[in-house]
């Protein structure tokens, strides 16, 4: 659960501000889990309403009640929507997708990405402040010595929005962010069947497959959960092997903290080579089978 990960920075900020942590959840189980991780007070917001975004006003009410100095919300698309709404109601500043957080000079200081990955900056937000944090920026903390209290509050959700059909992606169970080694495939592959070359290599390396935006969203060769990039997954494996992938900034921002980056591409001028520790200039159709065979020995 993303909110569990948020408990780690929350516990740090609690030390700086010496203020209690209130956790808000949309299920009783989640509320209990957060209390167990160190939230002083966990609140289960109970409503008949099903639309998650519809809880924004109720969340704001709880935030006001708790007189929170800092509000942390998971940086999913819904989370960011709710966070910005709450920030506006609080008349507060908000930092989106903070990578680090601390309190300095009475402000919330965060680092984040700008210009589609071209730059990084520090952002200072006066308190009270809102921050969203992307999944896997932090790891969940260990269980707290003493769990916090849990409360159930009945709330209303936004009745103005009618929720219609919900279609889940249906590719559950794929989490490339935990893989130690990833082979990322790009459009250098000519057809879906050719991905087998990457799968064979992945089997030998004990790696997972990842891909570029085009492979997932345009070609639909792999599920969206495998797509690495600015609006996809962010990964930090030990090995990121990019095959037939040009390496544009929007992709690289999702994998640039990998320990070792390797690239295979026919185009010597592809940007991926600037971002790689090791690069092979060659045809992936030739290189991959040779590499698979070499690693089997």
């Amino acid at each position: 659960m993303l909110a569990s990960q948020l408990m780690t920075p929350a516990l740090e900020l609690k030390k700086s501000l010496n203020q209690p942590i209130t956790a808000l959840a949309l299920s009783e189980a989640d509320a209990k889990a957060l209390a167990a991780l160190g939230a002083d007070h966990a609140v289960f917001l109970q409503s008949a309403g099903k639309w998650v975004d519809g809880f924004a006003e109720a969340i704001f009410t709880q935030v006001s009640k708790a007189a929170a100095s800092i509000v942390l919300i998971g940086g999913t698309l819904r989370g960011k929507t709710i966070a910005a709404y709450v920030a506006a109601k609080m008349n507060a500043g908000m930092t989106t997708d903070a990578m680090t957080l601390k309190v300095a000079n009475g402000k919330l200081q965060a680092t984040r990405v700008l210009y589609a990955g071209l730059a990084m900056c520090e952002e200072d937000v006066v308190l009270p402040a809102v921050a969203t944090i992307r999944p896997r920026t932090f790891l969940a903390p260990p269980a707290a010595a003493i769990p916090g209290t849990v409360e159930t509050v009945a709330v209303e959700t936004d009745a103005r929005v009618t929720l219609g059909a919900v279609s889940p992606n249906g590719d559950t169970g794929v989490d490339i962010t935990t893989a130690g080694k990833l082979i990322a495939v790009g459009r250098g592959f000519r057809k879906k069947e050719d991905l087998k070359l990457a799968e064979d290599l992945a089997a030998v390396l004990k790696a997972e497959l990842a891909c570029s935006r085009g492979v997932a969203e345009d070609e639909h060769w792999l599920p969206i959960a495998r797509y690495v990039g600015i609006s996809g997954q962010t990964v930090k494996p030990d090995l990121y092997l990019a095959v037939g992938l040009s390496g544009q900034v929007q992709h690289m921002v999702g994998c640039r903290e990998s320990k070792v980056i390797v690239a295979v591409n026919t185009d010597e001028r592809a940007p991926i080579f600037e971002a790689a520790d090791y690069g092979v200039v060659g045809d992936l159709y030739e290189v991959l089978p040779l590499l698979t065979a070499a690693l089997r020995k």
Partner: protein
Amino acid sequence: MPKCLVCYKWTLDEQDIKIKPEDLSLDASRAKGKISDFDRNAIEEAALLVEKNGGAVDALTYGTATVKQSLKDALSRGPAKVYWIADASAESADAAVTANVLAAAIRKIGPYDLILCGEGSSDMFNQQTAARLAALLGIPCLTFLQKLSGEGAVVSATRKLEDGTEEVSVTGPVVVSVLSEINKPRIPTMKQVLGASKKPNEEIKIADLGLKPEDLVPKATRSTVKGFVMQRKNVMFKESSAADNVAKLKAGLASEGLI
């Protein structure tokens, strides 16, 4: 047909921004302005709605003096009129200030049934404007849309989220933010570009918006902006024999302790 307003930001083209190698600071001196990429999708979506349902769409922008360079560009893409606010406050404005200004302007020139934004600006990508506007204007918001339609008073949309899609609809005024995949912005034809100068634009002065001084003070301020440069080994294997390259790569992987 809903009365539409599309909000856009005039940003620097990040492709023109260079990283100074001495101190990794950003050099934007040669950067040209552009309508933020996702806002172009918002403008296009509004234009498509008008083409389908009739009516007209207005555009609204808040920026520094350079925002005047955006007017013809915006008008060549479909809107019938553009409202603009050019003020020094935009230089340091954060999402809170931006929303305050836009909301005040909308209260002045509106009401609008449908307010469109891009999912985020191509420079800062705060992704806050749409939801903030909704909160300030007291209307619902539907964000991250891959599909949008407006039939009469009902706005229906498909949101694309990490775990799947959901269909939502609202009767009455609403703010939406659109994804880049919702449409492909048209290339303005020559006539559309030349016709832009015949369309009206109206300046709104910040002083006329009834804002308090603190509404224009940013809550979030940026410092230490540094270009991100990949520091990698850049070892290249370019032998004519793929087998040779593979052998060298294998050795490299072994030296890294990966195999």
